[in-house]
């Protein structure tokens, strides 16, 4: 059978991204023809600014070379402008007479720069800033002329002005609004920007309306004339007053257009054979000009072109985060404020910092940052997720608590960091490495940077920094990914959607999840399988059969794998209590199995390091005989309950913290969680058990027990929030069980309580645990029900022979 014919009009970023995505999932479905109006192969339009500034060259920014088109058998028509679509016969016609038939047509015609309709707009020396030809014209002019005027003080205009200044021209920026970038910045932030740019030698003419471009003696433009009568000399005029979706071709073919080509959530136009992506489309009334939404559209369009039929594009929230000559600014949402909103503002003009956060009903609706933009990604997350910020609005302006801890220091200005500055402490990745990967490998997204450099792929504490580096390197067109994140590459569904489907559609096996939710891979991946195994286990206790092969090795072998492939063994010591008999038993196994190292853990337990996998069942048998059970030090599970000695011994102790710790550990041990979970009980507010950096911490006071939640002492230290105070131990146990169950049922896999709590908000937790007593009781009941099946010691089972093959090595001697 002949292949279907796909014709792509537009050789830009959105069109070719769609083709790339399509080739990935259905390489043989189509015979592909591409028309490009420019004579260049597909290049990265975002990087035209660095090319103009002389930091990169045109070959540097090519995304797909001519060889790529050849390798993929794509018929490429460069320098040919498509002028007509014959929908009846399904043929497109180019200006030069070239024609191509299609079964599916993809329009990716991008946008056109808007040219002010004023006298002289067509003079030689007047250019826009859109493509390589424009940049070449500007570079050429910079070498021969002196005065440049940029009309338009938006993103693009400032980048053009900056580039021309670096090329040695005297540059004036004309802007009709009272301040620069009025769509992205409020006035105070824009003033800081302007001062900074003036220090770099740019001149600004604000609130000036351009009415004419004056023709010089040579026939070239020589001056710009304003409505107020002023004129300025200009040998080069750059029009950067905006873009308009390029809909002429679609309109000519009778396809419905509004501001752009109107598409639905599957990127189809009113003619279902014709798709459209990129800057030329209008989706739910919005036309996007930033790269992330375009790529998201490309992914969805490719999926439908490939006839997979899954995935919908539901729109994007975009942010602006850019570099103009080493200047950090970030904005998103409605930052100007207005009726019903409140603004929180931090302003320090002499240090060049300004932050404004706009709230409505205690939710973030806009943000505008100048100077220190490191928290931009965090604010953007709060905005997209609609997080209730009332619990931390007092500290909101100071950014995500402790962002940049663990060695990053106050790295406010990413631009100022040297290339040798370490960004990712886990994997030793420096700023220079990341920049090089972004440029060399043409990366656009955080995920791509993670894959290629490993930066931010381990603990994630440097994510904000990596995003900042990405934004700096890509410049003005960066924007974060849309809010809905698929679980992994195997699916379009988010964690929340999968959790809901498992619950609402009674999916009780992994196969049922794969089939019902149309997984794209036959058996998932190392990322989604452990997550699904957990979700199924948590939702259907007693019914779902745990799948060992979907567990990370630590949980499969019930020990922590070490760098040399050996394992560690941590027996449970209830509440941190032990006795001579237990210690003797541990000493005995340590000697018997020649354990190389014995250490006390941070959670008050004893850790035996360097145990060979084959020895695990035997060592567990001995420990089991001495009364020990697994300490689950290796699992996404209840780890330990740390305690202080409390009222039994301590002269300050107010309650029996050790005894309560033992009760809590007996209640909760064995439960699987989305992530590791730690408890502590301190006997008085001196808090020797460090309960306020645990997932659930109890601080005993004379009149009862304070319950604290959502702390951790890990990557980013987070102090708990006070949930409530209760009077009895029974209440402590109930609230603790209910809190754990809520976390087990609703958090995403690998999301610790701290980020979960910040995502859903403390008020939500309070509503579910404090205000809804029957709901709390029901959560606690579900927790206790699940514990029946969870509190079976995995060590004892395996010591008795379960999964024996897992621990045996087959030895063959020649």
């Amino acid at each position, binding site marked *: 059978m002949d292949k279907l014919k796909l014709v792509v009009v537009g050789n830009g970023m959105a069109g070719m991204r769609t083709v790339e995505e399509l080739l990935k999932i259905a390489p043989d479905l189509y015979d592909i023809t591409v028309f490009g109006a420019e004579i260049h192969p597909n290049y990265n339009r975002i990087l035209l600014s660095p090319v103009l500034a002389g930091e990169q060259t045109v070959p540097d920014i090519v995304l797909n070379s001519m060889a790529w088109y050849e390798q993929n058998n794509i018929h490429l028509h460069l320098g040919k402008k498509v002028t007509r679509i014959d929908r009846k016969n399904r043929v497109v016609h180019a200006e030069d007479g070239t024609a191509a038939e299609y079964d599916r047509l993809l329009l990716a015609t991008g946008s056109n720069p808007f040219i002010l309709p004023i006298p002289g707009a067509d003079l030689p020396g007047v250019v826009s800033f859109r493509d390589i030809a424009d940049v070449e014209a500007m570079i050429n002019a910079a070498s021969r002329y002196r005065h440049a005027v940029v009309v338009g003080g938006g993103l693009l205009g400032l980048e053009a002005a900056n580039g021309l200044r670096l090329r040695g021209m005297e540059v004036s920026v004309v802007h009709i609004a009272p301040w620069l970038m009025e769509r992205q910045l409020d006035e105070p932030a824009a003033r800081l920007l302007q001062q900074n740019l003036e220090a770099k030698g740019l001149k600004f003419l604000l609130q000036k309306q351009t009415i004419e471009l004056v023709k010089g003696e040579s026939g070239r433009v020589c001056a710009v004339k304003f409505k107020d009568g002023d004129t300025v000399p200009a040998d080069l005029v750059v029009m950067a007053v905006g873009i308009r979706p390029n809909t002429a071709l679609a309109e000519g073919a009778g396809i419905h257009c509004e501001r752009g080509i109107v598409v639905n959530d599957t990127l189809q136009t009113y003619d279902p054979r014709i798709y459209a992506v990129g800057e030329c489309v209008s989706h739910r009334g919005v036309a996007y000009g930033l790269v992330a939404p375009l790529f998201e559209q490309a992914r969805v369009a490719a999926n439908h072109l490939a006839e997979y039929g899954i995935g919908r594009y539901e729109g994007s929230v975009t942010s602006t985060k850019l570099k103009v000559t080493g200047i950090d600014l970030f904005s998103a949402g409605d930052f100007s404020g207005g009726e019903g909103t409140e603004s929180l503002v931090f302003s320090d003009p002499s240090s060049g910092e300004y932050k404004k956060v706009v709230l409505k009903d205690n939710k973030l609706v806009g943000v505008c940052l100048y100077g220190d933009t490191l928290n931009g990604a965090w604010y953007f997350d709060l905005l997209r997720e609609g997080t209730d910020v009332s619990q931390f609005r007092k500290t909101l302006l100071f950014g995500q608590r402790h962002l940049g801890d663990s060695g990053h220091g106050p790295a406010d200005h990413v631009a100022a960091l040297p290339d040798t500055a370490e960004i990712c402490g886990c994997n030793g990745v420096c700023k220079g490495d990341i920049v090089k990967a972004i440029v060399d490998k043409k990366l656009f997204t955080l995920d791509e940077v993670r894959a290629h450099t490993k930066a931010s792929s381990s603990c994630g504490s440097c994510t904000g920094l990596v995003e900042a580096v990405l934004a700096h390197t890509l410049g003005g067109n960066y924007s974060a990914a849309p809010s809905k994140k698929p679980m992994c590459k195997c699916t379009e569904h988010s964690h929340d959607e999968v959790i809901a489907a498992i619950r609402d559609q009674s999916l009780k096996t992994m196969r049922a999840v794969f089939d019902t939710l149309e997984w794209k891979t036959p058996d998932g991946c190392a990322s989604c399988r452990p997550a699904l195994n957990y979700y199924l286990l948590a939702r259907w206790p007693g019914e779902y059969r745990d799948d060992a092969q*979907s567990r990370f*090795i630590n949980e499969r072998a019930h020990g922590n794998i070490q760098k040399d492939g050996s394992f560690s063994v941590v027996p449970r010591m209830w509440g941190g209590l032990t006795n001579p008999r237990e210690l003797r038993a541990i000493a005995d196994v340590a000697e018997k199995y020649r354990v190389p190292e014995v250490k006390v853990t941070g959670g008050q337990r004893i850790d035996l390091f360097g145990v060979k996998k084959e020895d695990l069942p035997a060592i567990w048998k001995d420990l089991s005989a001495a009364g020990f059970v697994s300490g689950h030090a290796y699992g996404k599970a209840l780890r330990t309950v740390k305690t202080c000695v409390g009222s039994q011994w301590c002269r300050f102790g107010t309650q029996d913290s050790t005894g309560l710790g033992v009760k809590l550990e007996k209640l909760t041990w064995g439960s699987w969680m989305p992530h590791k979970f730690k408890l502590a009980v301190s006997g008085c507010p001196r808090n020797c058990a460090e309960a306020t950096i645990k997932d659930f911490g109890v601080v005993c006071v004379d009149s009862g027990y304070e319950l604290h939640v959502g702390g951790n002492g890990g990557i980013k230290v987070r102090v708990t929030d006070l949930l409530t105070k209760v009077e009895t131990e029974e209440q402590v146990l109930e609230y603790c069980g209910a809190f754990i169950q809520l976390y087990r049922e609703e958090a995403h896999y690998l999301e610790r309580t701290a980020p979960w709590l910040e995502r859903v908000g403390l008020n939500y937790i309070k509503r579910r645990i404090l205000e809804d007593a029957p709901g709390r009781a029901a959560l606690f009941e579900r927790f206790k029900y699940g514990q029946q099946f969870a509190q079976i010691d995995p060590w004892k089972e395996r010591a008795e022979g379960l999964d024996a093959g897992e621990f045996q090595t087959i030895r063959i001697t020649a």
Partner: protein
Amino acid sequence: MSDWIAIAKFDDLPRLGARVVQFDTVRVAVFRTSTDEVFAVKDACPHRGGPLSQGIVHGQSVTCPLHNWRIDLATGEAVQPDQGCVRTFETKVEAGQVYLRLADTAEETASVACAAHG
């Protein structure tokens, strides 16, 4: 060294799992996929020598438990963007018995493939 060596019963290989076979000179990870194909590679990730046998198997690949490198079991090559290659061994299943060959040919093929990546 080109003979087929019986290493295990097919049923002893867990589906989507692995067993470790220790020869005198080399430790081999033998995998069984969800479609009951059997693959064998040296039990050492090209990254930092992690035990691939302990990883999660999906499709025709395994993800190393130490730093999440993904290795194609059929070719031994790391999946892009990671770069590296691990030695593969020929396997066959006959009458419920799994055989492996420490063959020279397989070794050469693998070393050629690996050499391409430096």
